[in-house]
């Protein structure tokens, strides 16, 4: 076959067309266009008691706007927690130092992502800094089991109330008794609990959680700030001893 000018032009057009199609597939269809300017981006770290279904490349967002992506998820053997590294776009340099991170779910059963909420500090997070205030993923099964346990506990107190019929005793029971056995991550006992726990509970369960927080908050927040989460395993004890022992047993 003779190689003519027309052939050459056709082959050139074919190759160009193919490359345009490749470009289209990579830029328009897939997500290469996002964060292509990774120059100047910086990494933040955070420890989570449980990352749930969080995946690498999951979005990190604040106020619904994506600021970056999860770069690495690893296990921190010294703390028995997950260490998540996030790469944040250079455009969002001014995140306050007391920013808190929580693992949230997009939609009812959607992908999990990290939601940041800004604090009030004047200092900003730098490359390699760790976000101290974190909240683990909500595990649906644990939520349900907790709810059912609370219901059962309620039934018990009701029964006691009716049999004993003593006002003193009932008040004591209601304040001290409802401490459900918790799986280690249902409430992030290791981290300082943000004021409004964004856990979608039923009103009843929510009040319970708040009550619990109140009951332990003076001690725990004080202690946590003193220990600064560096020697976390020891500071965990006061929060929920039973759950803690269980988790240690599992870990060993």
């Amino acid at each position, binding site marked *: *076959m*003779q*190689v003519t000018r027309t*052939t*050459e032009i*056709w*082959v050139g*057009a*074919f*190759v160009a*067309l*193919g*490359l*345009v*199609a*490749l470009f*289209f*597939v*990579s830029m*328009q*269809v*897939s*997500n*290469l*266009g*996002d964060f292509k300017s990774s120059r100047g981006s910086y990494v933040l770290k955070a420890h989570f008691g449980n990352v749930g279904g969080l995946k690498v*490349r999951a*979005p990190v967002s604040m106020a619904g706007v994506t600021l970056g992506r999860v770069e690495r998820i690893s296990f921190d053997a010294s703390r028995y927690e997950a260490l998540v590294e996030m790469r944040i776009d250079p455009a969002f340099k001014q995140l306050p130092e007391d920013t808190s991170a929580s693992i949230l779910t997009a939609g009812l059963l959607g992908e999990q992502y990290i939601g940041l909420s800004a604090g009030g500090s004047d200092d900003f997070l730098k490359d390699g800094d760790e976000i101290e205030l974190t909240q683990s993923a909500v595990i649906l099964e644990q939520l349900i089991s907790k709810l059912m346990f609370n219901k059962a506990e309620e039934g018990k107190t009701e029964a006691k109330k009716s049999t004993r019929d003593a006002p003193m005793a009932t008040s004591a029971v209601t304040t001290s008794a409802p401490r459900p056995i918790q799986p280690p991550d249902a409430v992030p006992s290791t981290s300082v609990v943000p004021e409004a726990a964004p856990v979608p509970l039923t009103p009843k369960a929510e009040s319970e959680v708040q009550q619990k927080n109140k009951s332990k908050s003076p001690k725990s927040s004080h202690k946590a700030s003193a220990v600064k989460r560096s020697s976390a395993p020891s500071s965990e004890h006061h929060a929920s001893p039973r759950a803690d022992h269980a988790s240690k047993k599992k870990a060993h």
Partner: protein
Amino acid sequence: MVIFFQKLGQETLKGIGKLGRAVVFIAHALTGTPELLRRPGLLLAQMYSVGVLSILLISISGLFVGMVLALQGFNVLSDFGAEESLGVMVAASLVRELGPVVTALLFAGRAGSALTAEIGLMKATEQLSGMEMMAVDPVKRIIAPRLFSGTISMPLLAALFTAIGVLGGYFVGVGLLGVDQGPFWSQMQSQIDFWDDSVNGFIKSLVFGAVVTGIAVFEGYDAIPTAEGVSRATTRSVVYAAFAVLGSDFVLTALMFGD
């Protein structure tokens, strides 16, 4: 009984012998690479007949496959109120599977069969032995350019197929069925990963291109040099190429998306 075993052994040895010939043949063709680089005109001519002449077939098939995907997907997704995910569905199935695989099957039918018939006929009319008489290595001169042009053209054609398929899905989904175009593109972009999906699809199409052209040129070169032999070789070329594409697609998918 003994005859049965004899037949079985015969077939096995024949198969192994053919496999060995194929490996030696492909290795021989690859040694023609330096010569090919000195004479890119040979490659260019083959790119034209293998690649350029397949553009129309690939484009039209891609358009219709994308349109059908959008129609079918819309029916299912609208049951769940998830019409916005139509873009993801069309793009994911095209980028990961349909783009490379359907292109490779079409390519085997359009270009692979032509290569086999051409080379088989060259052998039947003793053009190949004529070349050898002139001290020109026919494997380096005839086979190598065809092998390389097929391997280069196939990823380009697959990318074209995928891109046109996504556009076809866009026309049907957004234009005809009334899906909003914002989520159509944005969900697609957030769900399709460049490295995990696009690059893996590209690697697939590269492998398929090499497999289809390799089978086509070997079947042509190995054909019995008669009219009947060439026709059989052409049929075998398409059938084997289809098997090889689908089989290697399973292996590649398991390797790439298995975990």
